[in-house]
């Protein structure tokens, strides 16, 4: 299934990627993460070894057990610092 993945702020810079569309088999965010982290050490560090990683699916912050479906927009980002 196809999902859109977005990376923001320091994650975007570390990964050199703002947005990608991925055709992937992953039932949850938890299953998606190892697929991304296999790409190399900077992915491992930015996503899988990052205790502060935030995840949103379709504009709502979720936990890693959240199911994914075709067409979902998944976003990874660091803790927010607006205001």
């Amino acid at each position, binding site marked *: 299934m196809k999902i859109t993945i*977005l990376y*923001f702020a*320091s994650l975007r810079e570390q990964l050199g990627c703002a947005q990608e569309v991925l055709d992937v088999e992953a039932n949850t965010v938890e299953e998606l993460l190892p697929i991304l982290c296999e790409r190399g050490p900077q992915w491992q560090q930015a996503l899988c070894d990052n205790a502060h990683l935030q995840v949103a699916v379709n504009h*709502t912050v979720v936990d890693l057990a959240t199911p994914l479906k075709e067409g979902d927009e998944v*976003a990874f*980002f660091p*803790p*927010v610092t*607006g*205001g």
Partner: protein
Amino acid sequence: MSQWVRVQQEDFDLSTEVARLRDGRKDIGAVVAFVGTVRDINQGDRVSTMVLEHYPGMTEKALHEIREEAHRRWRLENSLIIHRVGPLAPADQIVLVAVASRHRGDAFAAAEFMMDYLKTRAPFWKKEQTPEGSRWVDARVSDQQAAQRWEHADADI
């Protein structure tokens, strides 16, 4: 984007926005406005400029949810949130949260609540330029603690 939640590059004028919020209504007795501004010192270092990045679409949704939650918790007549993005300099305005209510207690509590939730739940990120180069601003534990003060009431919803 609704007229009561705006994410924009442009600056805003406090009087204009508060007049729009009040809209000449005679049932409003209290307005509390919070304006956040860029400081030239952060974590001990001089800040010359910053850039505010956000997550278009999710930002507006998060701000709407914060506003709606405030209207559920307190008796408010109106409220607005404006948050700027893009390049900003020290002393620039970053954010306006303004709340209109009949009595002042509701407006004070709701405005502080909205700021505390905005700080921890709205997808904005600051990148500062300092003499040592540019850096992403770290989230503050004190902001997390400020937001947690309101969470006992989350059971209501």
